[in-house]
């Protein structure tokens, strides 16, 4: 019986696999170095770094942040960072999973997040390759759904909100069942990983210009001046990274209230109509990405910030099948240096007809997305008039943005089967 024999062979293969699986012991909990970025900067600047610099960076990070089982937080003179990095809170989320005597859960990050976001917060947890979008790599310090402007860090409340609400339509779950304290602790831990990862990147960026070594531990006790100077540079860099997190709390974008009566059906209809014009107009230019029918099919070759770095530093990528030789070259080089990196993918603009808003579905959430853009993705921030600035045809007022919000939120109810509403209008208005 061929069928039976086939079965036997598969069985043998499976058994072999099973035996191998049982053989492995618990791996130690260590942070993984950002080898892909290290290789990327080396290649970009066409330098070969001192082979010791990799260990130097490891040492700097270990002495400032500790290890996953025993984290510290760096102390920077004159920078009060307890609001963003509270050691007690960081500790509760770190380390192995257990409960202490009074039933407080410990090791929250490893219990809830690590299989997606990875031990180092690099978004390379075991399950990552199946998920789309990939889990967030915190190390770049870029977050998508927040109330602060382009390029700024999210506030504490933004992170709490993401953890509690989750991100619908992605693998990022809602952690509503966790206690408030547990969420707080996780938020501190996310910042801890992000600051650590971003500092690592900044240190790698320093390497091409560093005279001798970033940190030469042998100098300690011998040439203290030099050793101290090395640490000063490092601390300065750490401060840059941490300051941005501290400041973020003050940088929440004010959202102007809407004029009374905006919910009246007539006003709303007019606002939606105005929003539609803007959506297809040159200034907001939304349709160029979201497509002529807002199905998210306008610009399908965009890439996000995390992927761009692995390819071409450009806004576009034609897809795996059509990689240019340079893109393939860079990707394969980086993959050889850091085998865990995942295959590049395009990011699609949202299909706005599904009425699904990953950053939250309240009008104010959509407002913030439009005004701030979505960091790390092609979604730009709308050109907004500054308060007090004279009206300008190249910019949008906050009322314009509210109209865009109304239009975008109405799209899921608008029938797409009436072509007159769409393509022809679009072409007309585009001109």
């Amino acid at each position, binding site marked *: *019986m061929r*069928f*039976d024999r086939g*079965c*036997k062979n*598969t*069985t043998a293969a*499976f*058994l072999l*696999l*099973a035996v191998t*699986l*049982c053989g*492995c*012991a*618990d*791996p130690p*909990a260590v942070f993984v170095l950002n080898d892909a970025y290290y290789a990327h900067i080396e290649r970009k600047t066409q330098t070969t770094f001192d082979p010791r610099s990799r260990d130097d960076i490891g040492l700097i990070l270990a002495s400032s942040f500790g290890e996953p089982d025993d984290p510290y937080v760096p102390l920077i003179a004159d920078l009060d960072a307890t609001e963003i990095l509270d050691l007690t809170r960081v500790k509760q989320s770190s380390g*192995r*999973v*257990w*409960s*202490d005597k009074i*039933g407080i*859960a410990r090791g929250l990050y*490893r*219990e*809830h997040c*690590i*299989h997606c976001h*990875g*031990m180092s917060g690099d978004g*390379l*947890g*075991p*399950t*990552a*390759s*199946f*998920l*789309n979008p990939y889990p967030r790599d915190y190390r770049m310090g870029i977050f998508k759904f927040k109330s602060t402007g382009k390029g700024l860090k999210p506030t504490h409340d933004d992170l709490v909100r993401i953890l509690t609400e*989750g*991100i*619908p*339509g992605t*693998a*990022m*779950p*809602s*952690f*509503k*069942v*966790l206690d408030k304290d547990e969420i707080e602790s996780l938020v501190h831990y996310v910042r801890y990983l992000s600051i650590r990862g971003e500092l690592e990147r900044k240190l790698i960026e320093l390497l091409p210009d560093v005279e001798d070594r970033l940190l030469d531990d042998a100098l300690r006790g011998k040439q203290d001046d030099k050793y101290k100077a090395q640490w000063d540079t490092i601390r300065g860099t750490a401060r840059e990274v941490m300051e941005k997190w501290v400041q973020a709390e003050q940088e929440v974008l004010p959202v102007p209230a809407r004029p009374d009566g905006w919910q009246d059906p007539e006003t709303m209809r007019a606002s939606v109509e105005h929003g539609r014009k803007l959506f297809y107009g040159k200034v907001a230019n939304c349709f160029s990405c979201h497509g002529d029918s807002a199905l998210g099919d306008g610009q399908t070759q965009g890439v996000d910030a995390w992927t761009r770095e692995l390819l071409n530093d450009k806004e576009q990528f034609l897809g795996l099948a059509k990689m240019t030789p340079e893109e393939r070259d860079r990707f394969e080089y980086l993959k050889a240096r850091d*085998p*865990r990196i*995942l295959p590049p993918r395009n990011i699609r603009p949202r*299909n706005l007809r*599904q*009425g*699904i808003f990953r950053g939250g579905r309240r009008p104010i959430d959509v407002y913030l997305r439009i005004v701030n853009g979505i960091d790390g993705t092609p979604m730009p921030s709308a050109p907004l008039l500054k308060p007090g600035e004279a009206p300008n045809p190249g910019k949008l007022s906050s009322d314009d943005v509210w109209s865009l919000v109304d239009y975008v939120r109405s799209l899921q109810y608008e029938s797409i089967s009436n072509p007159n509403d769409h393509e022809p209008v679009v072409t007309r208005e585009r001109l």
Partner: protein
Amino acid sequence: MHVGSPNSISPWPARWAIVLACATFPLIWVGGLVTTYDAGMAVPDWPTTYGHNMFAYPVLDWLRGPWDMFIEHGHRLLGSLVGMIAIGLNVSVFRNERRGWLRVLAVVALLAVISQGVLGGMRVRFDNRQLAMIHGCFGPAFFAFAVAYACFLSPDWSKVSAGRLDRSGQRILRLSAVLVVLTYLQLILGASMRHLTSQISPDFFRILVIFHLINALAIAAHIAVLRVRIAANFPRVLGLLLPVRGVLYLVSVQLALGVGTWVVKYGWPEWVSNWDFAAGYLIAAKSHSQSMTVTAHVAIGSLILAASVLLLAQTARRFLPTGASPSRPYSADRRDGANRPSGLAMEAVR
């Protein structure tokens, strides 16, 4: 049902064995919950519970305590209960059962429960996830064993006559043996996916998932073939038909639960995102629906293993010659509706 067999002077061993199997299933379920909630270390000491003798831990503290502590301590208590049932079984078997191999197996059962308990304890003492995985794989194996043992002790077991192996019987026997191997393997693969150590690479997990999927299809195909073969060759042999139907039914449920498990943990894949329900799906971490779906997938997995072991036992009983039991001609077993001209009765094997 009349319990008792020519070899056993009392119905009690069989009853104990049934109780043992029935108590093990909830134990597996709760053990699955422990992993689902990552509650393995919710009680950091062993064999004590927060310093108390496990049985003396205040009941109210346990019932009112945090959920993960509730299930972990509950798992320990239930495990001890199963251990005590295994002791009762041994007493009963040694007093009433004459067949030596069944006495040996009773001891094996007790030793297995004890080792499993110690393994679980070591998982806690060393806080080792690899041990947790082995503990998780051994549990279902014990459950399948307990089910098979209950079947050996049942009076029907000794009534079935054995020892007629023809070609179709041979095939069925082989298929059932492979089925057991495949289902157990599937369980190990599943356990590896659940007991991920933190630094498994995405590529490795991908391999696990792919193997788990291929194996799922292999099992489904296998059981379908078995079902057809058994129905064609032994349409009235309930001892074979019932387990094969059971496995088939459980496997269908399990396939659905497998899809469900993926969805509640990782969401819908990209290619279904054109549907609104998929595009807007929000994963609710550690919610009841999530935990129950995942744990049900685990528990049904061990049920499938047990059912396939049962099927294997039943086929082996019918098609393998054994010296241990009275060898009556197969057709004498009226309940199994034999008297079939083809098949079993025709080609006797030496």
